[in-house]
């Protein structure tokens, strides 16, 4: 999230950009340069639309030409078949682009990473053939001499610059709004760790779909105006590989995931390519492509993350960041105080006969478990006993093949992780799943969205959660710079932020030194004291014996013992399966 640059400054930057474009347009003395300027703005808009999905959520698309082309063909066919003016068909193309986004996202979001990117490649290629088959090989937009303004056919090329600028500004403002809202933060969380985002209560499916639909809408609108400017629509020109590549290259060059990256990319590369065509195309045909390629390679080598991020890092180095002020924690909100500090009689989570196997491996085999509200439960067992699988079953990453799970009376079976989270179950992970390029506060805010009515409330709840785990002083630091202990605490805060009734802690103490351990144990006790039921997986027996008031022991997917800590650690089954003879000796010596 680009929160380092405040919204107000960005708004000024956008205004400055608009003025600069207008000044350039007024100064240019040639229709040709106005045409190139229009193209710069349109390609910037496509790339920015691409950035909304791909830059923010990390789902790369090699096929944005499909939206661009649909927008262009809506304008062209609308004009030819129904005599509709582009003033109408450009927005209509946007709607079609959005619907296409929904249609494409539905099957394609089942895929991730490279597979998603490659699947997206298929859509424009397929559409290209469909439009060829339909007989729309070359569609010239008819010249309307009677009512040129109605059909967006202006003699003055500056009008097109103006139109493209308005659309680009709208896209910039939409992007800015996204960056600074729940929408953008959710996408950003998805980009960095989708399972963590899902477990933190983010409906990843919904946000991804929204991003693709919005991205498709904006790309189609840009494609519509492109058709008006070019006046000829062919499947190759609007659905071709070059269009999809252009969206990608401009953003990669300028800086993926930033507001200005695609604009910088378009402002540099589009005129560069055109200039090379103009100067070299008729002298040494083909050389322009070579020079263009070399220029891109050179700049990517110097600024691998894109020009924008490179410049920003440079500037950030020159002006040292303001001394990190401790985050102001709004005192107005106090966590809901729950009176229960010890296990009550009410059963909060009930698992009955849970079974799940992976191929021939029975990961969980008839596990039944009851967790009373307010308790602190420890799950122990050797490696591969099924502890993490149990957590994954509870929070919805896995669906058990048999058995039932109820939480406060409601069945959790078949719910997605974000829905489980909404029911009031938070979790942390064995390996910390942070969003490293977000601040600590943002990391926790992502978790708070589930329980918050609006973004401000989420921020407040996040601040409270950070305070509860004692991490307020580090709120403004990027999560990538935290120590292991702080990361564990941050993850705990993220799970606590939406004020869950139950949290699942997966080896929260793993890899921590003695001093660090005490801090975390204290935090966990505090959480329990606040009335949150805790279920913890842990290997560090000494710590566990002190911490929990109930042990459940898993071995080979079966529950082999259950009860008070001191009774369980003497159980011969448990000693044989997990604790070992050394432990038995220690226990017997301690008994003497």
């Amino acid at each position, binding site marked *: 999230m680009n929160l380092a640059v405040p919204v107000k400054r960005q708004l000024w930057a956008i205004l400055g950009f608009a003025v600069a474009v207008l000044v350039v347009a007024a100064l240019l003395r040639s229709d040709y340069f106005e*045409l190139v300027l229009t193209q710069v703005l349109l390609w910037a808009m496509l790339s920015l639309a691409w950035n909304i999905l791909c830059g923010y959520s990390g789902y790369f698309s090699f096929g944005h030409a499909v939206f661009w082309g649909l927008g262009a063909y809506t304008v062209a066919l609308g004009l030819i078949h129904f005599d509709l003016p582009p003033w109408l068909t450009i927005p209509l193309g946007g709607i079609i682009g959005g619907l296409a986004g929904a249609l494409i996202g539905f099957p394609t979001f089942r895929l991730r990473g490279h597979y998603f990117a490659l699947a997206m490649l298929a859509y424009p290629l397929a559409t290209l053939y469909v439009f060829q088959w339909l007989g729309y090989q070359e569609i010239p937009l008819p010249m309307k001499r009677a009512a040129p303004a109605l059909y967006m056919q202006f003699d003055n090329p500056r009008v097109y610059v103006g139109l493209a600028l308005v659309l680009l500004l709208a896209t910039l403002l939409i992007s800015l709004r996204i960056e600074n809202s729940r929408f953008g933060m959710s996408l950003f969380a998805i980009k960095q760790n989708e399972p963590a985002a899902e477990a933190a209560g983010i409906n990843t499916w919904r946000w991804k779909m929204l991003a693709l639909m919005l991205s498709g809408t904006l790309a189609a609108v840009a494609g519509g105006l492109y058709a008006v400017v070019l006046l000829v629509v062919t499947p190759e020109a609007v659905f071709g590989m070059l269009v999809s590549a252009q969206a990608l290259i401009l953003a990669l060059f300028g800086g993926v995931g930033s507001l200005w990256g695609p604009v910088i990319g378009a402002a540099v590369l589009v005129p560069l390519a055109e200039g090379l065509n103009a100067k070299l195309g008729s002298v040494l045909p083909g050389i322009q492509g070579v020079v263009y390629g070399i220029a891109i390679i050179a700049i990517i080598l110097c600024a691998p993350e894109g020009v924008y991020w490179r410049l920003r890092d440079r500037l950030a180095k020159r002006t040292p960041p303001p001394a990190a002020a401790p985050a102001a924690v709004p005192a107005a909100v106090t966590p809901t105080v729950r009176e229960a500090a010890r296990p009550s009689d009410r059963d909060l989570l009930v698992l009955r006969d849970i079974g799940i196997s992976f191929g021939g491996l029975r990961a969980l085999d008839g596990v039944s478990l009851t967790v009373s509200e307010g308790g602190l439960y420890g799950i122990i067992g050797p490696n591969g006993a099924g502890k993490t699988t149990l957590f994954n079953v509870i929070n919805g990453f896995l669906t058990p093949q048999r058995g039932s799970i109820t939480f406060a009376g409601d069945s959790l079976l078949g719910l997605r992780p974000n829905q489980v989270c909404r029911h009031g179950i938070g979790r942390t992970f064995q390996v910390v799943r942070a969003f490293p390029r977000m601040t600590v506060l943002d990391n926790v805010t992502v978790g708070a969205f589930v329980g918050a009515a609006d973004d401000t409330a989420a921020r407040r709840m996040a601040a409270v959660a950070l305070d509860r785990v004692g991490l307020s002083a580090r709120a403004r630091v990027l999560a990538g710079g935290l120590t292991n202990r702080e990361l564990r605490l941050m993850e705990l805060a993220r799970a606590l932020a939406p004020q869950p009734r139950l949290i699942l802690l997966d080896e929260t103490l793993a890899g921590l030194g003695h001093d660090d351990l005490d801090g975390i144990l204290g935090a966990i006790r505090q959480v329990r004291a606040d009335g949150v039921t805790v279920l913890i997986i842990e290997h560090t027996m000494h710590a566990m014996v002190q911490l929990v008031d109930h042990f459940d022991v898993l071995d080979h997917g079966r529950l082999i013992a259950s009860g008070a800590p001191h009774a369980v650690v003497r159980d011969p089954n448990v000693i044989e399966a997990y604790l070992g003879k050394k432990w038995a000796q220690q226990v017997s010596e301690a008994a003497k």
Partner: protein
Amino acid sequence: MTKTLTRRSVTRGLALAAGTLALPTIGRAQAKTVKIAMIAPMSGPWARQGQLLKMGADLAIEDINARGGIKSLGGATMEIIYADAGDSTEKAKNAAQRLVSEQPDLVGGTGSWLSSFTLAVTEVTERAQIPWLTLSYSDAITGRGFKFVFQTSPTAPWQAAQTVPTALELAKAATGKTPTTVGLIMDNTAAPVSFAKGLREGGFEKAGLKLVVDQIFTPPLSDATPLIEKVRSAKPGFLLLLTSAMPDCKLVLEKLDEFKMAHGKIPLVGNGAPFGSPELLKTIGPELLEGMLFSVANWPMKGQEEFIERFKKKTGEPFLTQDALCGYGHPAILAEALEAAGAADKIKVAEAIRAMNLTSGPAAQCFPGPIKFDEAGRRMNVPMIFAQWQKGVPVTVFPTDLALAKPFWPSV
């Protein structure tokens, strides 16, 4: 013996240099020049066609100026400005806009080979009122009500309608019999699809032909066996071959050979200049091509023998083709129009083209039929040209008065 560099010697040198630089400028200022433009794909997948167009245009400019330039303009020399249309409609349009902006004194132009490029380019040139000549086939180019676009090739639908009856005529003239069956093998790209549309919708029937093989494939073709098996069992009177990619064409011809149906057993008829390209000869070889017929908008004809030899010598090309011929013919038409207009004025040049009716002279020699345009900018009374591969050269065989060789119907 070292000469020291003094300030005076430097000044003198500079003055001399300036003088020599200035001289030709003064000379040029006295003899007027008129500027025309050519926008053609000189890079990208169609670069070869652009090169051929340029070869023709270079020769044309050379000839026009060698003949003494434009006489009605006091012997003004003609200058041609080239721009690369590249590989996309956007680049083609940008090239046109650039020329129009940077060269306000253009009196005419030609280009841009691919129909979609021509469509985009002429959107710009029409608004700038520059008379524009093109060899592109698409009927959309002259179907927009434009006033400054002139299409020297007959349109694609017209060519499609003419090709089959003319092929039948050739068969009858050579064998005394008219084929009654036809086979069709085509890919599903733009040009073949639009070409075959009219034929399927009654065109074959009207010509008295029964379509006995009808095979459409999506390029690239991986194996032609199933297509050729159909041909073997149906044995059509001739085979209409509409492929747009060289490798597919090669596969079909080789498979025909393998099935013992090549070398004229089943006569082949194609459409378009690519069927007569030197590249096809290089990949397929003269034996397999021998006898293959194709219809085309323009091809070297009787009366051009001297020019064909000169072109071959100058460029090293094995033979002259449609592209180079039109590349030569379009500047020639513009020169004639300038001559008639008597002014280096684009509007007057356009008027002169509209009024033109040329049947002789260098421009008329480059095209079959008179150079006379109708309201839309299409040529009138144009015959359909047929060329045939004979001993490794595609030569014009029809119409008879323009033919450089006699046609033979391969199956005889």
